[in-house]
């Protein structure tokens, strides 16, 4: 296979501790190798005066599956002026907040992203998620099945049956080719099937009579029992409501003292996602203020937790989440069209468009909170940049978020443009922060950190020999200061070149190959558990609307290039 050597670039790699030194990166047979291992015929890529990083890793985005597609179907207006023609290697594309699958792959690749995780997969619809993943070119992807409102999980955890829960999780991950244990609004989404919700960790779920706290604890325990690559990944109760930071802290406290158990280098037992939506103080939208300090103080002190930010980008976008009751609440607030799908036995989803206008004080405060979280973070290996795409903004805005984090001037420019600048300054701490993140810290927050949290640290997120050759060169010269922070955004929007698994896929912002993407999933082996298998058979006969054999059949056509992370939990 092809050999490349990327010469003279400024390398930023938290995995090897390289902070901008000039170094060469050598690629051979799809992997990074030592410089000495490539022959003289290796193709030379000149990265002089440029920045070299590993391919970025998206830890949480809604890019494939039924609610994403429902968003596409019901928002033809998202395609207005956002379509791209068939062009060279590219299929035609459409959509801004909910791009078509082809466009999704191309746009991530152009920014230097090479791995992405679909944040929430309803297990009954896993085939749909995988069809869309298959049709998303270039980037490796995985998908997180949701467990927090699942009937099996709630019934087992009511009786504290962690081993049975673990056996069920292992079965479901295999049946759906899933990657991790995702929890969304635990208990509350089952309550939503009756039009109700759980807003604190102690609100019992109707009929099932279990609390969100018990669900969360049980799933953390089951996750560690199995030793999965990623930790339990949670979207806590009470999303989006002023004052909800207390629910967030209650949720985080459940992980206190629990030690991670796995063979993948993961050091956290809980990943808190789109933290911005969960860091609100105040009692209503009038006195709404930032709880970012309180939340990040806790995160900074508790090293067994990782978070991602969920930055608001001040765009018109589409919210979509398995937090069904929240979406109904949102449509009552903004009166924009509401779609909802309750899924039998498992979960639900809701979709509502949203406009984060810089003229609305609430949206401006949300913007500030998202940035505060990253700027208060003491360990960039535990705080990652996301927009919970598309909920807080399209993923194509990551370069803009990076600009705001790296340049206080850019933040000031935006703050001065707010209609309610005074409220932003009084209700958040953003005005007092002069910290500017460095390229090394950005590399940790977008590459090494998420890869490690996902249990992929041996494969991606870094440039150490033996890792996958996912390499990106950006037009940023770390030795020359920026005249204008917009240059940061421009550079991160269009990489000079991107390699995925050793194949050059992007050159000067143009797609030059569709690569050979893989679907990452976790195959966990557990001891035989006849009781769980009987329970599964019984629920399919009585409560599901498909047969067990049809639920389990996920043939090769859905996952044409699988990559299974093997876990052995039989002891």
């Amino acid at each position, binding site marked *: 296979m092809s050999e490349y050597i990327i010469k003279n670039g400024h390398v930023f790699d938290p995995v090897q501790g390289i902070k901008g030194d000039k170094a060469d990166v050598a690629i051979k047979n799809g992997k990074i190798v030592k410089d000495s291992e490539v022959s003289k015929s290796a193709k030379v890529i000149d990265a002089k005066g440029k920045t070299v990083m590993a391919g970025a890793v998206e830890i949480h985005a809604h890019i494939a599956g039924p609610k994403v597609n429902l968003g596409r*179907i019901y928002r033809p207006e998202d395609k207005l002026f956002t*379509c791209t023609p068939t062009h060279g290697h590219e299929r035609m594309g459409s959509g801004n907040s909910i791009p078509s699958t082809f466009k999704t792959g191309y746009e991530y690749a152009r920014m230097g992203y090479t791995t992405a995780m679909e944040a929430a997969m309803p297990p009954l619809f896993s085939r749909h998620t995988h069809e869309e993943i298959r049709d998303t070119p270039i980037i490796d992807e995985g998908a997180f099945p949701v467990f927090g409102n699942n009937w099996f999980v709630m019934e087992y955890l009511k009786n504290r049956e962690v081993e049975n829960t673990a056996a069920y999780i292992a079965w479901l991950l295999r049946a759906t080719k899933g990657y991790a244990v995702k929890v969304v609004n635990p208990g509350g989404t089952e309550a939503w099937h009756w039009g109700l919700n759980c807003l604190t960790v102690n609100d019992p779920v109707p009929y099932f009579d279990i609390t969100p706290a018990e669900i969360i604890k049980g799933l953390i325990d089951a996750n560690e029992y199995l030793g999965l690559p990623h930790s339990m990944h949670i979207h806590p109760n009470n999303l989006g409501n002023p004052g909800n930071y207390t629910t967030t802290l209650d949720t985080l406290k459940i992980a206190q003292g629990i030690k991670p158990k796995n063979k993948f280098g993961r050091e956290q037992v809980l990943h808190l996602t789109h933290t911005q939506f969960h860091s609100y103080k105040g009692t209503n939208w009038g006195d709404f203020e930032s709880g970012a300090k309180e939340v990040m103080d806790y995160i900074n002190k508790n090293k067994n937790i990782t978070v991602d930010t969920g930055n608001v980008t001040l765009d018109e976008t589409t919210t979509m989440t398995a937090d069904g009751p929240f979406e109904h609440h949102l449509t009552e607030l903004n009166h924009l069209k509401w*779609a909802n799908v309750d899924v039998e036995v498992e979960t639900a989803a809701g979709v509502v468009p949203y406009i984060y206008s810089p003229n609305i004080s609430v949206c401006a405060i949300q913007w500030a909170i998202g940035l505060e979280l990253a700027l208060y973070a003491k360990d960039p290996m535990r705080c990652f940049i996301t927009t919970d795409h598309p909920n807080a903004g399209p993923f194509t805005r990551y370069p803009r978020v990076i600009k705001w984090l790296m340049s206080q001037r850019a933040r000031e420019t935006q703050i001065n443009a707010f209609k309610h600048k005074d409220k932003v300054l009084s209700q958040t701490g953003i005005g007092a922060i002069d910290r500017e993140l460095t390229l090394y810290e950005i590399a940790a927050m977008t590459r090494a950190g998420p890869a490690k949290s996902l249990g992929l640290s041996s494969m991606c997120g870094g440039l150490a020999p033996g890792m996958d050759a996912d390499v990106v060169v950006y037009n940023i010269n770390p030795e020359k200061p920026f005249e204008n922070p917009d240059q940061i955004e421009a550079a991160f929007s269009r990489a000079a070149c991107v390699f995925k698994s050793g194949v050059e896929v992007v050159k000067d912002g143009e797609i030059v190959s569709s690569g050979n993407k893989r679907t990452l999933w976790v195959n966990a082996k557990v001891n035989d558990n006849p009781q769980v298998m009987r329970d599964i058979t019984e629920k399919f006969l009585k409560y599901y609307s498909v047969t067990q054999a049809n639920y389990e059949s996920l043939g090769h056509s859905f996952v044409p290039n699988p990559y299974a992370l093997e876990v052995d939990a039989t002891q």
Partner: protein
Amino acid sequence: MSKKITDVICPFCGTLCDDIEVLVSDDGKKILEVYNACVIGTEKFMHSGAKDRITRPRMRQADGSWKEVSYDEAADYAAQVLAKAKKPLMYGWSSTNCEAQSMGNEIAEVARACVDNTAAVCHGTTLIAVQDIGLPSCTLGEIKNRADRVIFWGCNPAHAHPRHMSRYSIFPRGFFTVKGQMSRKLVVVDPRVTDTARMADVHLQVAQGQDYELLCALRVALKKEWLPDTVAGVPKEKIYEVAEILKSGRFGIIFFGMGVTQSLGKNHNIDEAIALTKDLNEYTKYSIMPMRGHYNVTGSGEVLAWQFGFPYSVDLTRGFPRYNPGDSSSIDLLNRGEIDAAFVIGSDPGAHFPISAVKHLAHVPLVCVDPHITPTSGVSKLHVPVAFNGVETGGSCYRMDNVPIDGRKVVDAPEGMLSDEEFLVMVRDRLKKIKGVA
């Protein structure tokens, strides 16, 4: 000797029953018996073994007779027709699998065609309404487990989705509905006393075409406000009564069909039905679901949406996706005489389009991919029979509630016959060569 294949998916309607069992001969070539399917599904499986099947492509001659051609010649002709045309229409897609639909999309992109599916004559207006107002919905298992109020509005499942009521909506004993039919109240709205209406607790015999008025009246009745003596032929007492029945449930579902999508009012009818559902969510829990017709029209909409951004009536003629029902939709394109070639697959517009549109189809180069002889094949230039999807090939399909199910193959197709997907691959490769595309 024979063998029984279980968990077979029936490829007829949007109910997509997946509990069918098929007895096949030991050599895997003949279907002997079909269990659990309704009479229509049974016929679909059994007919695949009919002796009078056309098994090879055929080209219409100048004198009106057919001449058999090879699949290669058929693919050549289809590719040339698509390459030469300025505005070809690729229509149908609803009775084939997602793999074939995806290949069809690829062809349409290269050919710069208009792509449309049978939603154009079925739930297209539903999609327009959903794009205006949204869609609070759920999966069919939710109905089975929770629903105690079921409304069939402008649909007749007893005839169009025969096992719907026994598998999901009326009879099943679910987790919270252990008394089965006794757990539920059924309201049917239909201008006729249909076989479905005969089972209802309340039948509102709405004046045909006045569903919009009745939906509005129900929304008013929910709020206990004033109504005229009758609305849409229904006395106001009955309207208030039904409003109370709806409100008093724990979990309700409105299923709707052609009675509201195809009558005047069209998408506005659906808009109002969805608005009624949203209103009901202020009192209790309600969802609404379209009764999709073909077994994979939903799949076609899903694949078009994730690949191009729109669920039907997609216009790729300018090299990027556009959507404008009324402009880019098949019937209008045909009625305006804008189409200069047509490729029809997995559907029968010859039988199901108004004749004015069919006349246009008949007078352009028309390729018809269909295992059956149909009115479409009867007016086409090229008829390409293929294996029955869901019987002789498997493949991904999507149920009316968007749940994806992987179809199963139960018997081999007759010797030498190709599947949709295989034929489409041949067409795509030839088209790419003609257009000089990699």
